[in-house]
């Protein structure tokens, strides 16, 4: 029996629900008629368009860039012409500035050719990562090049690749690891070179034995140089894929509150982000497409789809055979941390990992009742916070008093609300508290 690692405090075991898609190979979705490129794809400054209306663009051409802040450039996912520079619907911001690209579906797909990267310097590699517009595509969307430049006073000794994929339903990383293991391992070597270190550990939960086998084989096949890459098996537990929990599970180190992982000598990248780094550096291909899990019992044909950034969810639904009348909730991202949306008229962004069409049986709409102080949320919280108190204080209209219970350390994993027998919306309470209890 191989020993499995996990984080010690808290966590929950929601039904994995990955069976709908975990065996389905990644499928390439045909080009839609239009793509909608949101200018603020992720955390950081939004892009400014570098193309004019009606301009013709080729696949992979730069269409928007950013001069300052944390941003990264944005590229045309397909050849076509710029139809409009206006607004698109957005899951959180309602509407947001975006570029509409009328896709030329007759154009030949661009061939991305392999290139030698080994002789490039770390600085040149880093520039390529930035220029390719890569952000953390596991969910948070933090620009990857920024994470690869840890502060000089906190040297890094270990690179962790996050293959936990602890959110139920989502299998995009899983399929990428099974099908593209060699590319991920080569991406890891690029990241190691940029960071100037040797050690890389890939963490994968043990509900993905085929991914563990594929990654282990790829690591073995790519051996022979001086890098030290290993694959470790993690026990299935949510939220294992959270940066701090993953670092603790694999290295035993604890990232202090309000600090970056580099404070304990670690940098974490998602396996799919690592693969995007491979494509950017070895093939010169910017981040213009990604694997998105289309799942839930409300979609006719669940799939792991390779879609262009900017593809509308409505086009995906059409390609996947439509949705049933039973759909009660549509979620962008996983069921624990994703956003529910009210329309399908929204585009996939660089951070969309899944679109879930959940039926009434899959969600729980029981209204909240009073807190019975069972303390299950305290046991579930991986950060050792007191969600019940935060909820009670917010209900009592005293959100400014919640900092003592650690509201600003909460990363909203939802474990507390998942276990709450009184069905209290504890994540919503936390968000309200954060909004109103701004740090002074």
């Amino acid at each position, binding site marked *: 029996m191989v020993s499995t690692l996990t984080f010690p*405090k808290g966590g*929950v075991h*929601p*039904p994995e629900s990955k069976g709908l898609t975990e065996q389905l190979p990644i499928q390439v979705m045909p080009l839609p008629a239009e793509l909608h490129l949101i200018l603020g794809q992720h955390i950081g400054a939004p892009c400014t368009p570098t193309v004019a209306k009606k301009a013709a663009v080729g696949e992979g051409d730069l269409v928007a860039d950013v001069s300052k802040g944390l941003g990264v450039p944005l590229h045309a996912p397909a050849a076509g012409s710029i139809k409009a520079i206006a607004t698109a619907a957005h899951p959180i911001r309602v509407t947001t500035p975006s570029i509409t690209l009328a896709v030329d579906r007759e154009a030949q797909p661009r061939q991305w050719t392999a290139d030698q990267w080994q002789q490039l310097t770390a600085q040149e590699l880093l520039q390529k990562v930035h220029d390719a517009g890569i952000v953390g595509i596991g969910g948070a969307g933090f620009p990857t090049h920024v994470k690869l430049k840890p502060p000089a006073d906190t040297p890094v000794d270990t690179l962790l690749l996050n293959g936990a994929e602890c959110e*139920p339903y989502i299998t995009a990383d899983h399929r990428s690891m099974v099908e593209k293991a060699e590319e991920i391992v080569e991406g890891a070597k690029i990241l190691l070179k940029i960071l100037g270190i040797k050690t890389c550990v890939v963490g994968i939960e043990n509900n993905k034995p085929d991914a563990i086998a594929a990654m282990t084989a790829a690591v073995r096949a790519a051996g022979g140089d001086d890098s030290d890459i290993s694959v470790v098996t993690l026990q299935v537990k949510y939220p294992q894929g959270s940066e*701090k929990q993953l670092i603790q599970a694999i290295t035993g180190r*604890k990232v*202090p*509150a309000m*600090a970056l992982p580099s404070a304990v000598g670690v940098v974490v990248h998602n396996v799919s982000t690592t693969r995007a780094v491979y494509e950017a550096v070895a093939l010169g291909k910017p981040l213009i497409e990604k694997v998105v899990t289309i799942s839930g019992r409300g979609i006719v044909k669940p799939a792991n789809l390779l879609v262009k950034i900017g593809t509308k969810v409505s086009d995906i639904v059409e390609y996947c055979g439509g949705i049933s009348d039973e*759909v*009660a*909730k*549509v*979620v962008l991202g996983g*069921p*624990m*941390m*994703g*956003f*529910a*949306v*009210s329309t399908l008229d929204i585009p996939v962004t660089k951070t969309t990992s899944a679109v*879930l069409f959940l039926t009434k049986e*899959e*969600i*729980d*709409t*029981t209204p909240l*009742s*009073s*807190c*019975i*102080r*069972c*303390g299950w949320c*305290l046991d579930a*919280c*991986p*950060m*050792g*916070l*007191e969600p*019940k108190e935060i909820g009670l204080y917010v209900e009592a209209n005293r959100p400014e008093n919640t900092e*003592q219970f*650690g509201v600003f*350390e909460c990363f*909203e994993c*939802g474990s507390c*609300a*998942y*276990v*709450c*027998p*009184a*069905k209290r*919306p504890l*994540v*919503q309470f936390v*968000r309200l508290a954060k909004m109103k209890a701004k740090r002074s």
Partner: protein
Amino acid sequence: MWNVSVSPHVRSPESVGKIMWTVVACLVPPLVLSIFVFGIQVLLITAVSVISCMAVEAICQKALNKPVTVSDGSAALTGMLMAFVIPPGVSFLIPVLGAVMAIFIGKHLLGGIGYNFFNPALLGRAFLLATFPVAMTSAWLPPLTDGAIFSYLASGVDAVSTATPLAVMKEQGMAAFREAFGTPSEVYGSFFLGWRPGCIGETSGLLLVLGGLYLMYRRYITWHIPVSVLGTIALLTWMFGGETLFTGDPLLAVLTGGALLGAFFMATDYVTSPTTRTAQLIFGAGIGALTVLIRIKGGYPEGVCYAILLMNPLSPVLDGWFKPKRFAPPAGGEK
């Protein structure tokens, strides 16, 4: 229209109702045994208690213009527990009055479920003990040995009332106790199985322990409170419960009175007990210490009820003192 509520979008199948009704179900085996030990009126008293508690809850919630949540089982559980801590020979009016105290004053006037700082069932019992001191301390019945569970209904209870083991021990001493119930080694068995005088639910240690273990298996309760309550009772009784120091009988102390019922089902009430493990251990130890103090030095033979009621309001304080361990507290922050 689709639901757009905040994440998480999936939820565990547990609910308040499921927890409460499961606890009620765990109390059914001791109740059934109690019917065979004391007779059918035990079932009637319990039914009156449960129905009155549910009725009082419904009336309160209607009157206070709140949603009626009787189906969540918490009032039913209060009714069940209150019946378990009154003697089997009392009038049927007694649980009705107890229900008004427990649910109306002890629960809904304090804000309803989650906001009561005393265990409602025990508050009901304490009220009854103060209002009906004679009935509540003398309506004990000797266990039936012939299975004639309807006999007390026909004959009336006054003719057959007896005294509880703790009362005999306290008021008449160990010699009288041995004469009435046998040597300690003999009574371990009969007390553990349930054939002894006592409150309705205080009979079978075995069934109460099994119920408590099932709640632990379901992860509704943890070992912390029951073990610290019973451990403290056993330890302090061994030290101070005998004629001289360190000669008390710890096993007898745990098997008599309401110790097992209180430790597994009363002290573990979510609303009125602390939530962190350290706080739970201290809470349980406090209950154990107060129980032994009342048993040895107090005016009553049994002290579990008051011990729990005295510790209940300390729960928020203990929770404030013993916080969960933060993943990584902010630099210079709290411990």
